[in-house]
C-alpha cells in the first residue's frame, strides 16, 4: 500500500514538473508587443499622470506575461520581417467614476466604488487586423489611489489578452 502511494506521488510530481517545464520553455506567441498610451473619451477626468502610469504598468504586465519576446516602447521601429508576428495594443478609457466614500461605507455591496471602463484592441502590426477586442471594467475602494486602479486595469488587460490570444496561437 505504501509503495503504491509513493509511486502515485512520484508520477504526479513528475507530471507537474514536466508541465511547468513545458510552460517555461514555450516560445512566446509574438515577436514584439507595443502598448500605446490609451486615449480618453470626453468627460473622463483622470490626471495626465494616470495615463503615463497605466502605460508603464501595461508594459510591465506584458513583460511578465511573456506573450511577446520583446515589449517595445511606443513608436519604436520594428523590422518588416517581424511585423506580421508583432502586436500593438490600443485602447480608449470610456468611463471613470470617482466613487463615493460615504455611500460605499454606509451601503456597501459594491455601491459607491470607484470605477473605470476601457475598451482595448489588439492589432497585428503588419496589416492592422484586429486580433481581439476587450472590454475592461475595474472597481476599487473610493479611498484608494487612482494609480491602484491603473495597476488592476493593466493586469486585467493582459489576463484577458492571454485568454483571447492563446487559442489562436496554438
Amino acid at each position, binding site marked *: 500500500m505504501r509503495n503504491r502511494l509513493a509511486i502515485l506521488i512520484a508520477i504526479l510530481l513528475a507530471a507537474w514538473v514536466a508541465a511547468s517545464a513545458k510552460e517555461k520553455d514555450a516560445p512566446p506567441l509574438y515577436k514584439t508587443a507595443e502598448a500605446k498610451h490609451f486615449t480618453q473619451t470626453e468627460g473622463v477626468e483622470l490626471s495626465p499622470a494616470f495615463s503615463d*502610469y497605466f502605460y508603464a504598468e501595461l508594459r510591465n504586465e506584458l513583460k511578465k506575461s511573456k506573450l511577446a519576446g520583446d515589449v517595445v516602447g511606443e513608436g519604436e521601429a520594428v523590422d518588416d520581417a517581424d511585423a506580421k508576428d508583432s502586436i500593438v495594443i490600443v485602447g480608449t478609457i470610456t468611463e471613470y467614476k470617482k466613487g463615493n466614500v460615504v455611500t460605499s461605507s454606509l451601503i456597501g455591496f459594491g455601491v459607491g466604488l470607484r470605477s473605470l471602463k476601457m475598451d482595448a484592441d489588439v492589432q497585428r502590426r503588419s496589416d492592422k487586423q484586429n486580433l481581439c477586442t476587450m472590454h475592461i471594467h475595474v472597481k476599487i475602494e473610493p479611498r484608494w489611489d487612482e494609480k491602484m486602479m491603473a495597476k488592476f486595469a493593466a493586469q486585467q488587460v493582459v489576463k484577458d489578452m492571454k485568454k483571447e490570444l492563446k487559442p489562436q496561437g496554438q
Partner: protein
Amino acid sequence: MFFPKEYLASCSSVLLVCAFGASLLADEPKPKPENTISVQLTEPVPPQKFAIPPKFWITDITDRSGNPQPLLVYKDRGGIFLDRQPTLIVREALEQSLKAANLLATEANSADLTLRIYLFHFGLAEGSALDFFGKVEFTAIVKNAKTGESQEVKAAGTSIAKSAMKKKNLQKNVEEDIEESLKDAIRNFLRGQQMKDTVSELMKNADVVPATPAPATPPQPKQ
C-alpha cells in the same frame, strides 16, 4: 527683573519659528556615500540600422524638469541621491550607445547631425504606493550641421519596480528602476520610428544647402 508681556510674547514666537525651522532643516535629507546611487547603462543600447548611417554629436543637454533638487530622487527615509547630474547621466548613456554602434563623431566639426537634448524628467514619478515608477523623458533637436535644418524627436522610458522595507533593498530597487527607465528612453530614442524618419529626411537633404537655415526653437515642457 520684569519684562513686558508683549516683549515675552514676541520672544517666544521668534523662538518657536526658529525651532520649527531647525526641525525642518533636520528632516531635509543630506547626500552621503551610503545614500548615493550611481545610475548608468549596464550595456550600450544598439540603435536601429539607418539607410545612410550618420555621425552624431551631442552639443548640449539642458535640464527642463524644473526640479530644484535634481540629485535627490527619493525624499523619504533619509533620501536617495544621484552621484551625478541627470544631464550628465543621459549624455554619457547616449554617447556610450552611439559610440558602440560607431555613430558618434570624433569632434563637432565632423558630425553630420547634431543633437541638442532637453531633459523633461529623470528619476521617479508619482506611482502607486506599492511600487516605484521610474520615468525618463527628453526631447532632442536633431540638426543637420551642413544645412541647418532641424527636427524634433521625443523619447520616453518607463519602468516599474517593487518597493522594499529595508533601506538597502529600497536603494537597490530605486537604482535598478531608474537604470531601466534610462535604458528604455535611450532605446525609444535610438530605435524610434520618429528618429528613423528624421534621419532619413535630414540626410536626404544633406547636399541641398538652403539660403537661410531656420533657427531651432527649443521645445516647451508639457503642461
